[in-house]
């Protein structure tokens, strides 16, 4: 009897705990989103003084490039190759003539931007969150404030512009290397029945400038998101080395989620303006 009463009590207690945790989690998420939006607005506002901070922007741009070019090439090459191998197998009983358009469209519109977004989030976004987080923990940001140096134009704005400019360039780079990877497999794999020229003809027939532009717009938006999320988590770091580690991990996870959500929104909006028409 007593056991039954205890069990009833604990089951009565459980829902408020779950609801409270859910409420706290929701409030945390809303607070982080609010901080991101607020930092984005302040950073965009300070972009008017970008000329003054040109050396910092160029340094950050070079840093993003040097951190990502190698891994971006490797990943894009293999994604292009895997895509052709998988698609060729699925299309073996139909026609492999559509391989070119499949690889071209998938790389430029979807895989190039998303993969580059993930790589920049993992390499540069995490580095930015860790750097600003350490500066926060070791009072360097407080020191900037005592010198009347606003951390937003000093730290956030150059990183924002660098990533926002770098990502579309990386997307183009990834598109080219991914398509090159697909072409390599078509040329070397004996199970593929089409020639390289058939593959490229099909690709150029279906791929148009709008597809490439949509990919570049995605790169631009992902660059903004990754940099703002990384800076936000850097600025909200507390609690020593452990806090820096937590901020870095959170920045990467939040960037991945933001990229996927933004990807869906951009695709929906792009289809409103450029509906897919059969050729």
């Amino acid at each position, binding site marked *: 009897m007593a056991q039954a009463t205890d069990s009833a009590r604990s089951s009565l207690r459980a829902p408020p705990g779950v609801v409270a945790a859910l409420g706290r989690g929701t409030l945390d998420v809303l607070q982080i989103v609010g901080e991101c939006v607020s930092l984005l607005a302040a950073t965009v506002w300070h972009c008017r003084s970008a000329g003054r901070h040109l050396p910092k922007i160029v340094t950050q741009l070079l840093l993003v490039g040097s951190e990502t070019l190698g891994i971006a090439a490797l990943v894009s090459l293999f994604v292009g190759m895997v895509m052709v191998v998988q698609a060729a197998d699925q299309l073996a009983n139909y026609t492999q003539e559509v391989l070119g358009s499949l690889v071209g469209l998938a790389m430029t519109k979807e895989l190039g931007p998303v993969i580059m977004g993930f790589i920049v989030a993992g390499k540069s976004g995490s580095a930015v969150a860790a*750097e600003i987080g*350490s*500066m926060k923990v*070791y*009072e*360097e940001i*407080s*020191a900037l*404030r*005592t*010198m*009347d*140096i606003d951390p937003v134009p*000093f730290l956030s704005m150059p990183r924002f512009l660098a990533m926002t400019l770098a990502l579309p360039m990386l997307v183009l780079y990834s598109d080219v290397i991914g398509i090159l990877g697909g072409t390599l497999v078509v040329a070397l794999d004996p199970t593929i029945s089409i020639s390289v020229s058939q593959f490229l003809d099909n690709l150029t027939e279906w791929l148009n400038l709008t597809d490439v532009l949509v990919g570049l717009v995605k790169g631009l938006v992902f660059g903004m998101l990754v940099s703002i999320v990384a800076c936000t988590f850097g600025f909200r770091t507390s609690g020593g080395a452990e806090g820096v580690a937590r901020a870095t991990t959170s920045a990467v996870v939040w960037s991945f989620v933001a990229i996927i959500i933004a990807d869906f929104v951009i695709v929906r909006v792009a289809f409103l303006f450029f509906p897919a028409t059969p050729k």
Partner: protein
Amino acid sequence: MSEPPQLAKPVTIAVRDVWKSYDGQPVLRGVRLEVLAGETLVIIGGSGEGKSVLIRQIIGLETPDHGEIRLNDSTVAEYRRLPMEEKPFRASMVFQTSALLNSLTVAENVSLALREHRSATREEIRGIVRECLEQVDLAGTEDKMPAELSGGMRKRVAIARALAVRSDLILYDEPTAELDPLLTEEVGALIRRIQDRRRPTQVVVTHNLPLAREIADHVAVLRHGEIVDYRTGDDFFHSEHPHTRNFLRAARVV
């Protein structure tokens, strides 16, 4: 013959009934304190008594929950809101961690505020950096990175950074923390030298009594978020206040 250094502008500090809590726990409980222009006030207290919290309120990094702090005629908030070029005097803080920017060289750290606010030409900045590093006995370290410096050297670079903007008010948060006795003496002598040279108003937070003996014009003792004893530097070491006596005895000063 070199020019005599320009004296600092007089800055007084009035701390009036300042309260500050974190997560409902009061850290400062109605602190009242006056700092005279051109003097060096040492705030003594044990760990966790709220010394660092107090100077963070004075420099404007945090805002008191209640009460106000005035720097001359304006509140800290009014002073902080003014753009750099309109500020009637310059205030700086030397942090416990030194807070040097690790990605910048020593010279870039020292000249950071001057470069960001464009308050001097490149040539002038080079001269100011050289002069400030000479004052802290670090001439020739311009191109070193903070990671290449010892703890004492980093502290002195942080002090040079405050000197570079011709600070009229300098706040020091535990300037001798983690330094050995010889380096502590060096930093103490440096603070005294700055005092003799330009007479800025200085507030030093520490629990290091030999340092207090060397530099203090006045000493305030902070305990449980309140100022419990306030005396001239000489009187402090003969104080009859029970907490001060305990503190001095524990530090084997008496």
